């Protein structure tokens, strides 16, 4: 089946605008993760969902960032009043389940967000 799909692949927005980034996980995967990756660095955890609920949102940098997954499948990451420092690649990943044992997470291609 299809892998994790993220749209758009690129997004350029003006400082202060609102943006939405979409993630379609692999069908049947209950766990969904959002990461942010800046140039030359590893992905940084933002939030993860188990089903419809946000199980851990400790990585969201501030209250301008919000994510939803209303039906336990597609997720949207929302950023209000964007700032230039928000520019990065936003990665989504999904796995069959989450848990302290860990399971393989599959990543999408990412959305490159540029705030000008």
């Amino acid at each position, binding site marked *: 089946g299809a892998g994790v799909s993220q749209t758009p692949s690129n997004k350029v927005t003006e400082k202060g605008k609102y943006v939405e980034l979409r993630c379609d996980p692999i069908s049947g995967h209950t766990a969904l*993760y959002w990461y942010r990756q800046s*140039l030359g*660095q590893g992905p*940084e955890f933002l939030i993860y969902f188990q089903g419809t609920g946000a199980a851990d949102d400790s990585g969201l940098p501030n209250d301008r960032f919000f994510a939803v997954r209303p039906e336990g499948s597609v997720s949207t990451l929302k950023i209000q009043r964007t700032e230039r420092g928000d520019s990065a690649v936003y990665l989504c990943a999904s796995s069959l389940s989450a848990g*302290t044992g860990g399971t393989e*997470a599959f990543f999408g291609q990412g959305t490159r967000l540029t705030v000008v």
Partner: protein
Amino acid sequence: GESVGLHLPTLSVQEGDNSIINCAYSNSASDYFIWYKQESGKGPQFIIDIRSNMDKRQGQRVTVLLNKTVKHLSLQIAATQPGDSAVYFCAENGNTDKLIFGTGTRLQVFP
């Protein structure tokens, strides 16, 4: 000046040689580890994983070694090929439900 973060550690190897990429992880409570490969413009791609009850695991051309005493993880790639050129990340779970990534190592393969 430039951010230190822009200068990834780089490993340069000749095609056909073996590569060893090292990673020091931070959390002694981590019990699950993954190596990812990331090519330019793409998302991280799973290579191999290992749980803390093992110290070695082999895949196709790749081997992961785990030393819990010194919190060290390594990825060995046999007969390195040009297609192996990428940035490699180790990730640990910190005994949580999320993955925590290291800073990455760039592998360059020369013909």
